[in-house]
C-alpha cells in the first residue's frame, strides 16, 4: 500500500489494531510523501530517524495490546512547540540554533500515547501572521490552486505548515496553535478541520508564548472524528501552566452521535460583513439549512460588540507579545548579533532584536510597547481589556438564553495568493481573523469545518463556536455539519 499517508487518524488506528498495517509502514509512507513535497515548504525540520524509532516502539505496544488511540500515528508538529533535542524556533531567526532540553506538555501527552513525530512544521514567525509569509523559513504553500492557474496560494496562518501538510497528506494530522484564528483560518483555507479548545484545556507549557491570555493549542485533522481523538490526547491538567484547567477530559469521540435534534444554534447578525463575497454568505446560509434539517433550532442572535473585537485584539495581543518577547535578548538562547568594537549591552540587545526579529514581529512588539507605555496604558491597554470583558459578556448572554452553539463563516474570503497582500496596509491582513478573534478574546472553543468550494475550486469553511468546556457537544455539532456538507474534495497533486 503506497497511499497509507492519505489515511485519517481513526482509519489508521483501526487498521493498526486489526493488524492490517504497521506504524513503521504508515510512517514510511508519510516520510516518502514529505520527501516529494519540498515545493510546499511545510516541513522545516525533518526527524525521520526519530519517527522510525517511535514507530517501532509503537508497533511493539500495539502488539502487546497496549495501544492508546494515538499510538503509532505519524504527526507533524508546529515549530512553536518545544520538542526535546529537536530544533524549535517558532519560525524566527532569533531562535536560530535553539534546541530545547525539554518537551512541551502537549507533545509529551501525544508521545506518551505513542504518537510519532515526522518533523516540525512551518508557521508565521512567533505565530504572528495570517498567511505564513512572515516565516524565517520562507512561505509555506497551499496544495490547492485556483482552477488551472499556477499562482502559489497561501495555506493561511499562522499554522500554515500544519494546514498544508495535512491537506497534502504528508502526515495524518498536525498540531496547531490559535491566538486569533491561527488554527481555524488555515484549516478553512485548505479544506481540513481545526479546533481551538476552551482556554485552559491544553497546557501552554513548552509552547513558545505569543499572547499568553489568548494562546491555545489544538489539532488540525482530516475530519471531525480525528479532531475529537487527537484533542482528547492533547488536553490535560498541567501544574506547570497556572491557567491550565483542573477538569476531567471527556472521551470526545464517544460524544459523536451526529444527533443534534433540539439543539439551539445561534446566527449572529453582526457577522454579516460589508463587502463579504456572496459565496461566503451563501455557504453560511447553506450551513444554517443543513443544521436545521438535522433537527437543530436556528435562532437569530446579537453579539453587539463584535466590531470591536479586532481593534481590542490588536491592543491586547501586541501588548502581551511585547512583554513575552522581551526574553529574546541574545543572552540566554538563540542568536546574538555580531557586535562592533565598543558596543555595550544596550547595543547588543538592540542589534540582536533588529536582526533576529522579522518586520511583522518588530512592528507588533513596538505597538505593544507603545500601548503599555506611561501615559497610554489606560487609554489603550485598559480600555481594550474593558472592551474584552464586554465581548465575553456578549457570548455569556446568548449562552444564558439557551444557545448551544453559534454558526459563522470561518474566514471572510477563500485563500489568497502569496504576495497579493504585501502592499496592503497591515490592517487589511488583520481582517482575516475577523470571525475567529472574538472566540480567543472570550476564551471559547471554536472549530472550523470544510463546507464547500468557491467558483475557483478553493475550499471554504464554516465555524462553530461552543460553550466553555463543552468541546464534546461542539464536536458533535461539527460532526453533524460535516456529514450534511459531505465535503470530500482534495487538491490535485502538482508538487
Amino acid at each position: 500500500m503506497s497511499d497509507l499517508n492519505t489515511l485519517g487518524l481513526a482509519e489508521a488506528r483501526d487498521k493498526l489494531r486489526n493488524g492490517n498495517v504497521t506504524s513503521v509502514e504508515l510512517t514510511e509512507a508519510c516520510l516518502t510523501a514529505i520527501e516529494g513535497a519540498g515545493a510546499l515548504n511545510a516541513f522545516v525540520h525533518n526527524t525521520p530517524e526519530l519517527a522510525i524509532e517511535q514507530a517501532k516502539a509503537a508497533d511493539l505496544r500495539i502488539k502487546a495490546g497496549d495501544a492508546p488511540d494515538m499510538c503509532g500515528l505519524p504527526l507533524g508538529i508546529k515549530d512553536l512547540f518545544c520538542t526535546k533535542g529537536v530544533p524549535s524556533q517558532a519560525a524566527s531567526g532569533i531562535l536560530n540554533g535553539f534546541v530545547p532540553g525539554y518537551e512541551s506538555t502537549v507533545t509529551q501527552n501525544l508521545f506518551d500515547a505513542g504518537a510519532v513525530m515526522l518533523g516540525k512544521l512551518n508557521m508565521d514567525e512567533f505565530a504572528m501572521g495570517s498567511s505564513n509569509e512572515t516565516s524565517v523559513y520562507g512561505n509555506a504553500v497551499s496544495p490547492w490552486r485556483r482552477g488551472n492557474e499556477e499562482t502559489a496560494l497561501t495555506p493561511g496562518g499562522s499554522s500554515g505548515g500544519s494546514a498544508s501538510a495535512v491537506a497534502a497528506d504528508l502526515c495524518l494530522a498536525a498540531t496547531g496553535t490559535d491566538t486569533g484564528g491561527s488554527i481555524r483560518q488555515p484549516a478553512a483555507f485548505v479544506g481540513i478541520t481545526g479546533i481551538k479548545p476552551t482556554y485552559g484545556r491544553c497546557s501552554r507549557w513548552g509552547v513558545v508564548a505569543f499572547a499568553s491570555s489568548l494562546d491555545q493549542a489544538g489539532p488540525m485533522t482530516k475530519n471531525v472524528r480525528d479532531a475529537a481523538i487527537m484533542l482528547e490526547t492533547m488536553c490535560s491538567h498541567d501544574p506547570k501552566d497556572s491557567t491550565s484547567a483542573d477538569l476531567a477530559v471527556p472521551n470526545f469521540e464517544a460524544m459523536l452521535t451526529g444527533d443534534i435534534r433540539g439543539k439551539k444554534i445561534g446566527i449572529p447578525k453582526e457577522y454579516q460583513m460589508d463587502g463579504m463575497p456572496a459565496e461566503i454568505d451563501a455557504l453560511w446560509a447553506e450551513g444554517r439549512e443543513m443544521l436545521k434539517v438535522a433537527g437543530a433550532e436556528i435562532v437569530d442572535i446579537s453579539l453587539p460588540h463584535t466590531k470591536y473585537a479586532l481593534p481590542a485584539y490588536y491592543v491586547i495581543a501586541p501588548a502581551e507579545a511585547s512583554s513575552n518577547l522581551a526574553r529574546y535578548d541574545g543572552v540566554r538562547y538563540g542568536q546574538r548579533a555580531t557586535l562592533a568594537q565598543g558596543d555595550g549591552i544596550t547595543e547588543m540587545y538592540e542589534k540582536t532584536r533588529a536582526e533576529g526579529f522579522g518586520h511583522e514581529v518588530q512592528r507588533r512588539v513596538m505597538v505593544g510597547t507603545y500601548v503599555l507605555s506611561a501615559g497610554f496604558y489606560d487609554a489603550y491597554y485598559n480600555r481594550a481589556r474593558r472592551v474584552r470583558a464586554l465581548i465575553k459578556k456578549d457570548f455569556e448572554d446568548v449562552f444564558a438564553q439557551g444557545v448551544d452553539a453559534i454558526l459563522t463563516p470561518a474566514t471572510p474570503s477563500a485563500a489568497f495568493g502569496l504576495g497579493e497582500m504585501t502592499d496592503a496596509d497591515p490592517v487589511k491582513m488583520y481582517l482575516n481573523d475577523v470571525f475567529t478573534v472574538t472566540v480567543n478574546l472570550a476564551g471559547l472553543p471554536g472549530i472550523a469545518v470544510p463546507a464547500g468550494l468557491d467558483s475557483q475550486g478553493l475550499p471554504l469553511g464554516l465555524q462553530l463556536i461552543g460553550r466553555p468546556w463543552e468541546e464534546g457537544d461542539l464536536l458533535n455539532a461539527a460532526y453533524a455539519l460535516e456529514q450534511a456538507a459531505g465535503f470530500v474534495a482534495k487538491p490535485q497533486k502538482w508538487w
Partner: protein
Amino acid sequence: MLHVFTGESPLMSIDTDTAARVAKLARIKVEEDALPALAQEFNTILGFIEQLNEVDVDGVEPMTSVTPMRLKRREDVVTDGGQQDKVLFNAPDAREGFFAVPKVVE
C-alpha cells in the same frame, strides 16, 4: 455591522521622534531612514484601534483572567535546580558557568 477604519487617526499622530522613542523602549534598533515609514504604520494601526473609544466602558472592569479561577498554591520550597549545564546549553556565549555579556560596568 463590521466596518473598518483604516485611515490616519485625526486625534493623534505619531511622529518620527515618537517612533524612535518606542523603538528604543522596545530595544530594537531602527535606522534613521526607516523611522518615517514605521511612524506611518503605527498611525495606521493606532487609527484602527481608535474605534475602541466609541465603546461605553463606564463601570466595566478590565478583564484579568479568561476563566475566573483561583490560582493554585504550593509550598514555597525549591522543586528544581542543579541544572547549570542545561540552562547554559543554548547560550550564545557562556563562560565558566555563567552567561557572558559585553561589559556593563566600566
